[in-house]
Each structure stands twice: as C-alpha cells, then as structure tokens.
C-alpha cells in the first residue's frame, strides 16, 4: 500500500526537474502550466486517494475511538493492545515468520534455480516447483490442513511417520488392553504384573478387557479354566473377559469368551525373569522348571505397545513450523523463477573466465554467481518479508481453533478482534496501524532501491 501511496508524490517531485528538457519537443511546456499537469494527474490521485490514502487515515482515526465508534478514547486501544498477551504472541510469531520463512524460501529457491540449470528436464522440474503458485492460499491451506491431520489414515505426514516408526518398532498384539480386575493386576511400566504371589503348582487366570472382537487374532479359541500344574509348573490362562453382546460375569470364564493367543508371559522373582512363555490359541500357558518359591506373573510390555500415532503437527508446539512449511511449498517456486531469471542474466563469459582461471564450481558460485545475484536475492527476500508480515489466510485455514492462539499472527489477531466475534473495530484498527508501521521499513527499503535503480 505504501508503495503506491508514496510513488505518485515521488513522480510528481521528479516531474519538475525532468520536465524542462522534453518541453520544447512536445510544444508548450506543461512544466509552466501546473494546472494542466494536475488535470492529468487527477484521475490517478482520486483513485489513490479513495482507495489508499483515505482508508489509511480513516484507520488511524478509527483506532482512537471505542468499539461503537462514538466515543473518542485517545490511545486507549493501543494501551489495551499492548496489555494483551495475545498481541505479544502474535508479534512473536510474526517475528518467527519474518526470520525463517523468507530466508528459507529464498535459500531453497536459490538451490532449486541452480540445480534446475543442470537437470535435463529443466522445464518439467521448474513447472512442478512453480505449480503451487497457481493455487490460491485458501486451497493450499485446506490441502495442508489435511496433510497434517493427526489420524494417519487421513493425514499424509503422519501416514509416512507412522509407517516408518511401526517398521522400526513394531506394535504389540494387544495395544490398549487392560486388566479386567484392577486389584489382581497392577501396571508395571507398560506391562502388567500380578499383585499377589504365585507358587509353582498353582494356576492363575488373567482377564483382560478393552480389546475389540475384531482385534482378537482369528485363531483365538474358547478360553478354559487352566488345571493346576505340576510341582515345578505355573499354569495359567489369559482371556478376554468380555462377552460380546453383554451378559458375561466379570472375573469368570464365561462360555463364549475367547482366550488371547500370542500373549507374552514372564514369571519374575525378585526382579529377575525366571521363565517365560507365550499363550496358546485358547489363551493357556505353562511355565515349567521353576524352583519352589513365590513368583509374580507378568504380561510383558511388548504385548501392549501402541502403534505409533504420529506427530501432533497441528498441536500447540508444531503449528507455526507446520504452517511455515506450507508457505514454503507455495513460495519457493516464485523464488526459484525470479532467481533463475537472474542467473540467466549472468554473462556466461564471466563464469567461463573464472573456470578457465582454475576456480572450482563452489568457488565460481561463491565468488562470481552469488555476488552478481545479490540484488535479485534481496528483491526476493524483501518481497517475501512484506508478504510474510501480513500473512493471514494460511494461519486462519490451517490452525484448528483450539491452537489459534498459539499460531496467532498480527493480521489474524486484527481480524479476530474486529470481525471474528470481538467486533471491536477500534481495537482492530489499532492492530492494523501496528501492522502498517511494521511493514513501512521493508516498503521504504524497496522504494529507495527502486529509485536508485531508476536514477
């Protein structure tokens, strides 16, 4: 906004010194007739005035009034704005954005541009990287909202994470299962261990719940009470103590209840594993060759290891990096194309000369390409900084409302305060003024540079 509001005066200033030389050629000098100049400038000034200058001034004025717009409250909105934690979080997040997003986008764009020069299917590659630019921010936001979904069945990012993690660390047969009788079995880390002692020659029955019928292995057979074992044996049963459709008695092995096959059992004595077994199809196990004494029976933690449930991309901690990555997906293409154009403009001879002088590719890049590219890189960087300062749509679409506070940025906060329920357009205007003030340095830099280039 500031570019367009500032450039017409700049042109106007430039006009008088520039006017005299062409004046003789074009007939009567317009420089001597400011009225005529003004007439020509009028349409542009009117449009700029109505669409740029007036809104800016009105926003500043509005920020000095209360929510209804009737009472003048001075700088109260600004005081309130800076007393609110949410504003600070928004400013902090904006700072994170400004520091990381443009740098990463420019850096990646540079890498891609340099690489693209060397691959055979240059056009296809560039097209693929540039394609996201053709998608609206809103649509891109919706896409990434889905990519980062928590449930691996729907979220691409977590589908990748969970399949890798599950290969490295396979889940147990019975994740989420827990003992039916909380008094008989106590948790021991992720494992469960009997509270009472068991001696060889005795039998234990361990009922488990919270296993859906479709999670029970297909070869599971009906559970039966175990016999008492021999002198040096512990006999036991692990079964699903839940009758489908209800009606079973808790703690009893009811007729239709199934054994849980493949459950890994350990008997421990003073912390040492004295024997282990795996349950059969009917849930039964026998551990033999035990010395007389008191043991405890443990269901190993590996039985209950949960499958990986992925990363909470959209949780409070990762939300801003997640949104920044979607920004990169869109803007790296832009950076690549502009930098690519800059690269193409570097005279080949210079590079050839450097190579002839014995520079290796890295030195050519460091000493020749990079310095020659510097102005282009700066343009890209500054453009992206301005872009990032007023980032709104991606944050609004990707962050679920529960973490909107954690992902907050100034533009979003402005919208939330003025329209999203707060309906305080005085305070909202104050936030826009803050945003405007923050954008000014980047704008001023861009204008200075433009003027230098023209001058």
């Amino acid at each position, binding site marked *: 906004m500031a570019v367009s509001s500032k450039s017409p005066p700049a042109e106007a200033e430039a006009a008088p010194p520039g006017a005299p030389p062409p004046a003789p050629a074009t007939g009567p000098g317009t420089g001597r007739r400011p009225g005529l100049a003004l007439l020509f400038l009028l349409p542009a000034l009117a449009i700029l005035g109505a669409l740029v200058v007036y809104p800016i001034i009105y926003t500043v004025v509005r920020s000095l009034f209360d929510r209804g717009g009737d009472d003048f409250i001075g700088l109260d909105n600004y005081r309130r704005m800076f007393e609110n934690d949410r504003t600070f979080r928004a400013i902090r997040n904006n700072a994170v954005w400004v520091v990381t997003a443009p740098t990463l986008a420019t850096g990646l764009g540079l890498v891609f541009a340099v690489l693209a020069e060397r691959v055979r299917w240059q056009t296809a590659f560039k097209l693929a990287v540039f394609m996201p630019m053709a998608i609206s921010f809103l649509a891109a936001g919706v896409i990434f909202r889905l990519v980062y979904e928590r449930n691996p069945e729907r979220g691409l990012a977590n589908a990748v994470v969970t399949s890798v993690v599950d290969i490295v660390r396979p889940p147990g047969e019975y994740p989420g299962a827990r003992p039916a009788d909380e008094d008989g079995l106590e948790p021991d880390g992720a494992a469960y261990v009997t509270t009472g002692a068991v001696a060889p020659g005795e039998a234990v029955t361990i009922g488990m719940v919270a296993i*859906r019928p479709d999670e029970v292995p297909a070869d599971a057979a009906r559970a039966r009470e175990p016999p008492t074992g021999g002198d040096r044996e512990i006999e036991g049963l692990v079964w699903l103590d839940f009758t489908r459709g209800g009606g079973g008695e808790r703690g009893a092995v009811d007729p239709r209840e199934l054994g849980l096959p493949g459950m890994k059992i350990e008997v421990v004595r003073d912390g040492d594993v004295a024997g282990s077994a795996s349950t059969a199809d009917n849930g039964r196990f026998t551990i033999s060759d035990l010395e007389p004494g008191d043991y405890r029976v443990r269901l190993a933690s590996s039985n209950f290891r949960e499958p990986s449930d992925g990363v909470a991309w959209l949780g409070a901690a990762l939300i801003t990096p997640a949104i920044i990555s979607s920004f990169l997906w869109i803007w790296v293409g832009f950076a690549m194309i502009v930098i690519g154009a800059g690269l193409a403009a570097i005279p080949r001879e210079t590079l050839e000369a450097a190579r002839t002088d014995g520079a290796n590719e890295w030195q050519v890049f460091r000493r020749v390409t990079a310095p020659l590219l510097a102005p282009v890189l700066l343009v890209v960087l500054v453009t992206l900084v301005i872009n990032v300062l007023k980032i709104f749509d991606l944050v609004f679409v990707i962050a679920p409302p529960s973490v909107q506070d954690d992902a907050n940025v100034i533009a979003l906060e402005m919208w939330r305060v003025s329209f999203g329920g707060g309906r305080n357009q005085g305070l909202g205007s104050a936030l826009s003024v803050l945003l405007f003030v923050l954008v000014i340095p980047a704008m001023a830099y861009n204008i200075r540079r433009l003027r230098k280039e023209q001058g």
Partner: protein
Amino acid sequence: MKRLTRSVAAAAGIVLVAAALTAAAPAAGGGGDDLSGESVEVAAVWTGAEQERFELVLEAFEDETGADVTFTSTGDDISAALEPRISGGDPPDVAMLPQPGLLNDFVERGALQSVEDAAGAAVDENYAPIWRELGSVDGTLYGVWFKAANKSLVWYSTEVFSDAGVRPADDFEGFMENAQTISDFGVAPFSVGGANGWVLTDLFENIYLGQAGPDLYDQLSRHEIPWTDPSVTEALTTMAEVYSDDFLVGGVEGTLETEFPRSVQNVFAGDPEGAMVIEGDFVGGVITGETDAKVGKQAKVAFFPAIEDAEAPVVTGGDVAVMFTNTEGGQALIEFLASPDAAEVWAEEGGYISPNQNVDSDAYPSKAQRRIADALVSAQLIRFDLSDLQPSEFGATDAQGMWKLFQDFLANPSDVNGIAQQLEDAAAQAYGSQ
C-alpha cells in the same frame, strides 16, 4: 408502531389492524393480506439444504400474500455481514439471528423494530413463555423464535451398544456405567469435536443445568454468580469424568483437533471408532449427509440423562426472526413465521425443530425427529444455551473466552479451580467492556 412516521402509519394502519386481528385467530397464517408489489429481504446464516428448505417457507409466504421475498445468505458470520449494512443504513428487512446476544446488541443500538404488534399475539398463542422472554429486551418483544435446537441428545451407534451389551441410560449413573462398559469392550465411548469450543460448552451446560438446577443456571448466564462458584467447579469436575482421556476417540490430543462433522463420522461412518456423540438434533443431518448410516437403524438417539433426582435437562438454541425495518411486508412475514403453518413447511422437509407448540407433530418426517421435537416443547427443565447468552467475545468466539477455556480444561482437567478463575476473569472482562 412508535417508530412509524405519520404518513407511513396512515397508509399502513388499516392493514396493520387487520394483521393484528388475524394474529389473534388460532393458527393464523400471513393473514391473507394482499401484499403484491411489496418486496421483503430476509438474511440468515443458512446455506445449502437449509437455505433451500427455508426458501420453501418463504415461497409459502409469497403464495399466501403475493409479496416478493428475496433471501440473502450471510454465511456463518452474520454479524460481520449485517454490521456494515446497518451502519450504512441499508439493513435487510428481516434477519434470522442465531444468538440472543446479537438481538440484545442490535436492540441497544436502536437497530431493531418491535414485533409486538406484528406477532405478539401469535407468540402468546403458539409458544411457551420462555420463548417470549428470550425474544424480548426490557419487556418489549423484538424477535420470534422460528427454529430451535435440542442440544440435550445422545446419538449412539446401535452396533457398538449391542456388541457391548448396553442400553441407553435414563440416569447419569447408568450413563457413566455404560461408558465404562463400552470402554471395557474396547471402543471409546465418546467422540467429541473438541476443535469446536461450542461442542464442549454444550456438554457443560447440560451438566450444569441438570446438576445445579435452573435458578443457578439463570444466575450464571447473567453473570450474577461468579464462575468460581462451587456449583460451577462441581459441574466441571463431573465434565472431566465424562470427557476423560480414556473415554475419548483419539484421546484428548486427537479430540482437540477433531472438528464436529468428523466427530460424527468417527461413530457412524465405517467401523465405529466411538460409541456416542453428545450434541444437538443437527447431528442427524450430519449422519444423513456424510455417512451411510440411517437414523433409526445404525444410529439412534437418546436424551441426555437426568442427574440425581432432577428432571432430564434440555438445553436449547435457535434462530430468532427480527425486523430491521418497519414495512408491511416485513411485519406480515414475522407474523407468518410465528405461525404453525410456516413451521410445518420446513418440518416436513426434515432437519428442523420448531419451538412452536402448536405444530402438528405428524409434520415431522421421522420418529426420531418427532421425539426430539416433543422433548423440546414438553420439557420441564429447559433453558437456552448459556454460552449464546453471553457477550459474544466471551461465549461465542473461536479461540477465546468460554470456547478456548473449555478446550484448555479438556487438555488439563485436573486444574478445576484454575480454569474456573480464568473463566471468571474472561467473563468479568467481557461484561466490563460491554
């Protein structure tokens, strides 16, 4: 009437008297006034199927009166859409507001016209007293409740219930036993769209109304007792037992990312990941629209259980028809909307509950709808959605106020007193800045 200028009053006077008279007659419709040439603009948040069905109601009004009605959909944020039009002096004639808080705001700003003359008699005739109160500000009637929501429902998967061997419970104790049994069966009892704060406040309101009773509910909804009141912390404690990590599809973390429609799909689309969704009648629409399940077969509905010896609570919400301009057409439309005829048009199409007690319950297309509507109009312990009665920045805004704090509470349920204090602070600030 007061606001009418003399010349308009003279022109419209006779028609108005006629309208008032017909309104007193039972089950009066638009009164059969000839309004051809009159045009009326109606704004509402409805889109898609809801918009189509409401347009049928408007067509019925057009057929009866000859008026020309245009419908404007504002999308979800109706206040953002109306605000500039009111400031600019060009509001729609009639709007359907989804929150009484907005009604109060607009009355305070002098933007609304009283509908006492247009529909006062019809409201007395057709509605329980609570709806007149809810449509009034300082004793003057400004709105007619056209659409209501019954937010005290428990939608459940018949498959999970029968596999786990449980039946819907009437009392809260049985309800929690069921939850435990379903959890033992291996399915999470509750699927909750915790990404939307209103889903959480709705549960709190049901518990609070059932547990603390209507008097404290009214006081809390007017912020006459603080949120740190023991009745609030007690309800919060109960809420934490219901929506505890073990009982939720995806646990607390997953719940906070789950949006409401997804929470319904979790239970009714494909393999059920959860057993119950505690939410309003509109769940039925999501089941029909976004899953293959049929209401009455795979999906059934029960009522939120009574807590201890109290009646079963009914928390309600809805859309209120208000009038921004005092035109003949607008008045006739408001009166029509207060009649059972108008309500029956939409009722037959489904996805709609009317607070109008003279609506023929045969008009509802399914047994489930009829039960839900009956429960609403015959409820003993009925109150309006508490969060909708708050200043919207506290009660009805994403990521702040109640919606945000209940999400924080879900994530950290042990800190009951801390969250009560934060609720109190946020409420005090919102009421202070009004």
